[in-house]
């Protein structure tokens, strides 16, 4: 009996590296098929020495494929295991391989999108942005390094995991773990989004609701100012003590809303946009609409 052909760690690393370019030839016809075929080439070269087998393998990996680019890694791992068995004579046909790919890509994309695009990127992005807005270089560096370490680590270890457990991965993932990861990611995501809406969606209404005259004792007495540092200090002390600079105290509509809860308008706006999106209004239209509202708001002096 001929010696078993196995994929070495080096082969698997080559596949994993190429797998990063999965979406390069993304197309409306078969989506990620070209990138998938490109990624698996090192394995095909190793497993099938003869030309006909190589052609057959390349053709079967040019079939339709589309999932989230990172969670594609466990699918790749399983496919590598199956191709290896097949090259060693196991009766695995094209349908079985395509079936596993298609069977895994759907549910896994359902995990990848919320976990990476809607939990990790908003969180790391917001973290980075909060440093960056004050011009701190740490923000971009933190985002870039953390993201790529997590991403490549995830891709390599899940591919290895898929390769080791082979076809049993599909059962394993459907046994609750997948659902738990999705749910955990959604909970964390919703929590953080709630926080971000409060912190970073800014709407300020400027209309003045009421103007009340300040009590005489609460107004800083400017009459003592004679240009010397000492009198300036005296005024600043009064200001620090909470005295007002003006004769009247005005309350804006925003102050009233803030006393209900800060960010109330922001959350209302966000929920309204959620509803619009559900009604299939394009995000681009909404964005342009918000700018128009902003301009009108400034022109009419209410924002």
């Amino acid at each position: 009996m001929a010696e078993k052909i196995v994929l070495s760690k080096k082969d698997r690393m080559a596949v994993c590296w190429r797998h990063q370019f999965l979406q390069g030839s993304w197309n409306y016809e078969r989506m990620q098929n070209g990138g998938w075929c490109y990624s698996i080439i090192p394995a095909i070269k190793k497993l099938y020495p003869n030309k006909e087998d190589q052609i057959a393998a390349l053709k079967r990996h040019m079939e339709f494929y589309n999932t989230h680019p990172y969670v594609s890694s466990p699918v790749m791992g399983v496919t590598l295991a199956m191709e290896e068995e097949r090259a060693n004579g196991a009766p695995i046909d094209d349908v079985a391989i395509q079936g596993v790919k298609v069977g895994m890509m759907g549910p896994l994309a359902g995990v990848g999108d919320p976990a990476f695009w809607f939990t990790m990127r908003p969180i790391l992005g917001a973290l980075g942005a909060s440093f960056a807005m004050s011009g701190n270089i740490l923000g971009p560096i933190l985002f870039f390094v953390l993201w790529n370490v997590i991403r490549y680590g995830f891709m390599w270890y899940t591919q290895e995991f898929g390769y080791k457990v082979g076809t049993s991965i599909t059962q394993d993932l459907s046994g609750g773990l997948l659902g738990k990861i999705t749910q955990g990611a959604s909970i964390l995501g919703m929590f953080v989004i709630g926080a971000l809406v409060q912190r970073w969606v800014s709407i300020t209404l400027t209309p003045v609701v009421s103007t009340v005259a300040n009590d005489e004792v609460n107004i800083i007495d400017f009459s003592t100012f004679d240009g010397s540092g000492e009198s300036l200090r005296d005024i600043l002390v009064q200001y620090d003590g909470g005295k007002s600079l003006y004769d009247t105290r005005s309350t804006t509509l925003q102050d009233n809303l803030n006393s209900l809860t800060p960010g109330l308008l922001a959350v209302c706006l966000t929920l309204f946009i959620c509803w619009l999106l559900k009604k299939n209004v394009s995000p681009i239209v909404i964005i342009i609409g918000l700018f128009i509202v902003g301009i009108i708001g400034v022109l009419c002096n209410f924002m």
Partner: protein
Amino acid sequence: MNIITVLLIVIVAFLAGMEGILDEFQFHQPLVACTLIGLVSGHLTEGIMLAGNLQLMALGWANVGAAVAPDAALASVASAIIMVLGLDGATASESVISTSIAVAVPLSVAGLFLTMICRTLAIPIVHIMDGGAEKGSFKTIEIWQYIAIAMQGARIAIPAAILCFVPSDVVTAALQAMPAWLSDGMTVGGGMVAAVGYAMVINMMATKETWPFFALGFTVACIQELTLIGLGVIGVALALIYLTLKESGGSAGSASNTGDPLGDILNDY
């Protein structure tokens, strides 16, 4: 701008364009792209500040299924170049940054159309790859994969290069010609635009079970002392607690009547 700066900007733009489709290294995210353009053009601090502001707007922009999100790559690269041109033309940095943010939005729409064109052009490319598979030619598949990626890079690099050759006084004049109501309105609108990204995320994840966590996040965030890292820790803890309780709650329910000692005592009376 001298020729080396332009060249470096075009390289950054090329990387951003590649990443706009690959979505791996994140060169297309404003946080990375604007910082790099700021770095190569000598306006690092302003670049980082623009990066932070744009990133907040783009937090929820992601391509999911059939939904097409605004294109972060062209938005971040082009608005960073406009910012650099404005700064070179000696416009005050604050107003340049806020107008650059405003122009980013129409640019992200333009980028979207370019992406769609590239994704259509990729169809004949995979047909050539099919031909390669037919003949067992690994080289054909590999080369056309690289060509497809390069096409996506060029999608951003070409507009970036063109933009670099617009004289900076033209950009400055355009920026200064903008009336105050327009730029102020854009700033106000920009403050609200972040909500669109968040709404996209919410629609993706919201279920009956997760809405309470949104409410918690919203109210807890009013405590200004909590940093984002702190909020993240609370979020992770809540998720873990919820999952654990849900699991034990499910098993306790099936373990029937002994699960509630107080109830048993009361029943005995």
